[in-house]
């Protein structure tokens, strides 16, 4: 995994990992304010893991309305947390498939992929959160 050390603001050094997430957008929006960065990451980690579980469960239950609604709520945060456009497009595809004639095998594969990517992102975001916290101390 490639590591890039970036100087962010006068007091904070963030180690941005090139992986499923890229915090450049969030750094710009927060003006590299570590408190705001931590707050945004923390809110994301509060909101999204239950959404991922709900996505998985609604697929198992074949509750297409809930699957669509869950993805609908998850989609805007992908760009905020700097997920690749492929991930966002996949979520939009699953939502469209849940809204329309359901192709169960395709949805199953994509839901599993989205779950994997999100869980990987949660670990990275927890690490980023800790890195920022340490840099502030």
């Amino acid at each position: 995994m490639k590591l890039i050390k970036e100087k962010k603001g006068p007091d904070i050094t963030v180690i941005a990992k090139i992986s499923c997430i890229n915090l450049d957008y969030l750094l710009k929006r927060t003006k590299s304010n570590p408190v705001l960065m931590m707050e945004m990451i923390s809110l994301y980690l509060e909101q999204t893991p239950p959404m991922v579980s709900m996505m998985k469960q609604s697929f198992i239950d074949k509750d297409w309305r809930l699957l669509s609604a869950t993805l609908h709520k998850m989609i805007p945060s992908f760009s905020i947390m700097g997920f690749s456009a492929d991930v966002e497009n996949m979520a939009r595809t699953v939502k469209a498939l849940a809204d329309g004639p359901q192709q169960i095998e395709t949805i199953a594969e994509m839901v599993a992929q989205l779950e994997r990517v999100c869980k990987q992102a949660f670990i990275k975001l927890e690490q980023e959160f800790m890195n920022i916290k340490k840099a502030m101390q």
Partner: protein
Amino acid sequence: MKNEMVKLFLVDDDIVFLKLLEMEFSQLQNFIIHTFVTGELCLANMNQQPDVVILDYHLDGVEKKAMNGIETLDKIKTMNADTPVIMLSAQDKIDVAIECIHHRAVDYVMKSETAFMHLQKIISHIFSAKKIEMELKWYMNRM
């Protein structure tokens, strides 16, 4: 709009996007921001008379019993028909946009990286239009 404080209500059940908007508007000097995660909470605070409301369309997506964006919009308009409401949605759909406008929303903005920029522009237009309207009334009263 330069020196006047604008009381802004932000309503969204997506707490990440809500915080992002709050953060962006807080960086501007002239906004007093109140955030709400449900339409019900927004309505309960309408006595504070917001200058503008930014309201999510899909407030009942995951929480089925929650009041949806259009119902909230209708109730806001019943309480105060002059309160400008801008609708937000994660989807770019013409029928949703038309529905919002039919229910007297000022505009419809898609949640994207440029949403904040669009919202700022719309709010600026709202206040320019209000100013022109007030000036027109002033002249009409003197005719």
